């Protein structure tokens, strides 16, 4: 008798939590894609929430402080860590992606302050949607510069 109501109560809580998790996941899922994957299925993913990552091509960064419109291109980098390691680490992979003119690229548009870490060969992770204009409209921009703090080796120096 005493146990029963606890079992019922516990089941209700469990159901509520499962519902919360499932529904929130469905409502907020973002597909993580490389730029190659995005290009391959561009029609079917227009307007969907997505997260893409790539290497920032420094020359393409444009910023209009009047409208706070930021645009730049990112080049495809692999999402497979083992491949990254095999090719000499993230910094090397990002560098190779940027200097290779044959890599697939996509233009990113973002409105807001220009992030401090946005520079050539930074790794960018963008959340947003692919527009019908073929550009990726980012709502959120995340950057990191692995070359600087993780695996840098000093240049040839004297002293």
């Amino acid at each position, binding site marked *: 008798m*005493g146990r029963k*109501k*606890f079992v019922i*109560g*516990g089941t209700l*809580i469990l159901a*509520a*939590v499962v519902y*919360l*998790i499932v*529904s*929130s*996941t469905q*409502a*907020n*899922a*973002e*597909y*993580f*894609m490389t730029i190659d994957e995005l290009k391959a299925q561009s029609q079917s993913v227009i307007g969907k929430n997505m*997260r893409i*990552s790539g290497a920032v091509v420094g020359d393409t960064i444009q*910023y209009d*402080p*009047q409208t*706070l419109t930021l645009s730049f291109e990112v080049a495809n980098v692999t*999402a497979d*860590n083992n491949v*990254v*390691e095999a090719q000499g680490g*993230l910094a090397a992979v990002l560098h190779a992606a940027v200097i290779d003119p044959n890599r697939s690229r996509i233009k990113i548009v973002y409105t*807001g*302050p*220009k992030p*401090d*870490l946005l*520079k050539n060969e930074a*790794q960018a*992770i963008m*959340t947003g949607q692919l527009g019908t204009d073929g550009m990726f409209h980012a709502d*959120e921009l*995340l950057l*990191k*510069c692995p070359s*600087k*703090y*993780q695996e*840098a*080796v*000093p*240049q*040839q*120096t*004297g*002293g």
Partner: protein
Amino acid sequence: MLAEFGYGILVVAFLVALYSVGAAVYGDRTKSAGVVESARRAMLLIWPLITLSAATLIYLLITNHFEVSFVYSVTSREMPTYLKITAWWGGQAGSLVFWSWLMSAFASLVTLRKWDRDREFLPWVIVVTSLTTAFFLGLVVFYENPFARYWQTLDGQVLTSMFAPLNTIPLIPADGLGLNPLLRHPGMIIHPPMLYLGFVSFVIPFSFAIAALITGRTDDRWIRITRRWTLWAWLFLSFGLVLGSRWAYDVLGWGGFWGWDPVEIAALMPWLTGTAFLHSVMIQEKRGLLKQWNMILIILTYALVIFGTFLTRSGVLSSVHAFAQSAIGPAFFVFIVVTFASSIGLVIYRWPQLRGETELKSLLSREALFLLNNLLFISVLVVCFWGVIFPLISQLITGQTVTVGPPFYDRATAPLFATLMLLMGVAPLSAWGHSTVKTLGRALWKSALAALLIAVILFFTYTKNAIALVGFFLVALVLLVTIQEFWRGAIGRMKAQDENFFTALWTLISRNRRRYGGYIIHMSMMLMAVGILGINIFQTQTQGTLPVNGSLKLGNYTVQYESIAQFNGPDNRQVTRAVVGVYDQNGNYLGELHPRIDYYPDAQQNMTIPGERSSMQDDLYVLLVDWQPATANGATFKIFVNPLINWLWIGAFVFLFGILVAAWPDRELEYVRERSHRVEQTSAAD
């Protein structure tokens, strides 16, 4: 030479830690007090050893020994000395040493206590703490050596190694890379140590739990011994989280304080289980229930502490699929799996002894509500964990990586946090053993009505937002109920003891510090909730490019661009600082703000530092986004008004006070209250 010395000492410390583990096990098995004592002394030696090694490392950091790769990567000549010292925990290798240093300090402290009644726990506490220390030292010795140096081969290749590889010459860079500018902030100097102190001190209750499981002394002795440790651990961890938020707010320049970043979640997860543990141990002490559950909670907390250290320290986050990028990833994984599996194995082995002494009877009894509180904390944990691992799961099942962002966490946790708030309002009024809707309702209705009235007033005067109103209602309810508890207790004493109100209140609190300290913490959580509701629901923003004397209006504020200047700041920064005047809606001058951009040439990186004007009502938060030298275009600003955010920081101070009330050492002996008194205690109100 110094580098070899520092490394050698670390190796010795590692071996000593292993010896103390071995000796403790052997001494316990052979019932040899002498061997256990040897293990204890060995463990006491670890801390001085690591201190010596750390001192060497700090010396290398201060004196610009850039041939050491760790020194090269976290310091530069321009950095002030205090930053060079704090660079100790600014990089992975150093912070692992830092972790072991704190761990060994706490382990030493706990072994210095009096052990008369708990001799049989001692060897196992040594085993757990020394093994944990040894694991971290092992990572440093084998994978992440902070003393490794640069060597150059004849064909110009640069190698990193402790000792000179064949045919190489030492490479001594002229200057280092410097600490990441993001980390050159006072908040970052104390935030990691706080977090680590929290992490490390949770190892102590865990070690006693394991000792209790192994020795079979599964009564609540281990909980009583570690009660204060748990509270301090919780204090440090909570403060680490708050400091991290404040740092994000001041430095990251996006107008927020919490972004559900995996690093933040990594620190939050042990806090969630730790908080659940803190509550559920009371049930075990008072009612002899939930013993199995408490064991599982502390084991989970330990696993999450190690996991959290890994996530925050491996430098591989923000990219969702990068868990194993660092060399230490697999080592962490194996350690977590092995310790977790063996701990859970022990719990299963002792399962029958851990059965409750009574049964839960009433759904609304205090203990049932505590259990519900635990379930809610665990639910939040599950949401967090799900969010972190969901990309991996989706990858495994569908081959397509799917991630979830902050909206997922907001949506899934908000109802859970709201229910937790409701519980904070209801649980203090429910009785141990048995409560009914009727008794609870009688105790609650006045506060509930008053809180509802407050919500109605806010509806007409402040906001029509439903979520905010529900939030404010709950805040008001908890505050009223809690204040009423203080009031009732004090009045009761006044009458019974013929004391004046303040004496009565003072004695009431000092006689039941854990209880009333807890209530103060509940109230502080409500103040924080006001701040969180404020910034999440009412934040407004605008942006624009202003000529000199141009202005932007947001809410009640007008921000006028006055001037901009560039100069060199300390730490070799190039500072671009704007001066903006702030006016209220009637045009009254309120003062000026200085949003700025700091450029760090050594790191080639900008830092955008906001100008903030704080009041109880709101924060005006102005960012200098961009500027043109000597043109009429002037500068671009982004402005946030963050209502009520300061209640978050005020709440943090109240929280600190509450924890000090609860955790301050007693003069009287802790274990005067024994189980035989339990029945009498619980029949009283507490």
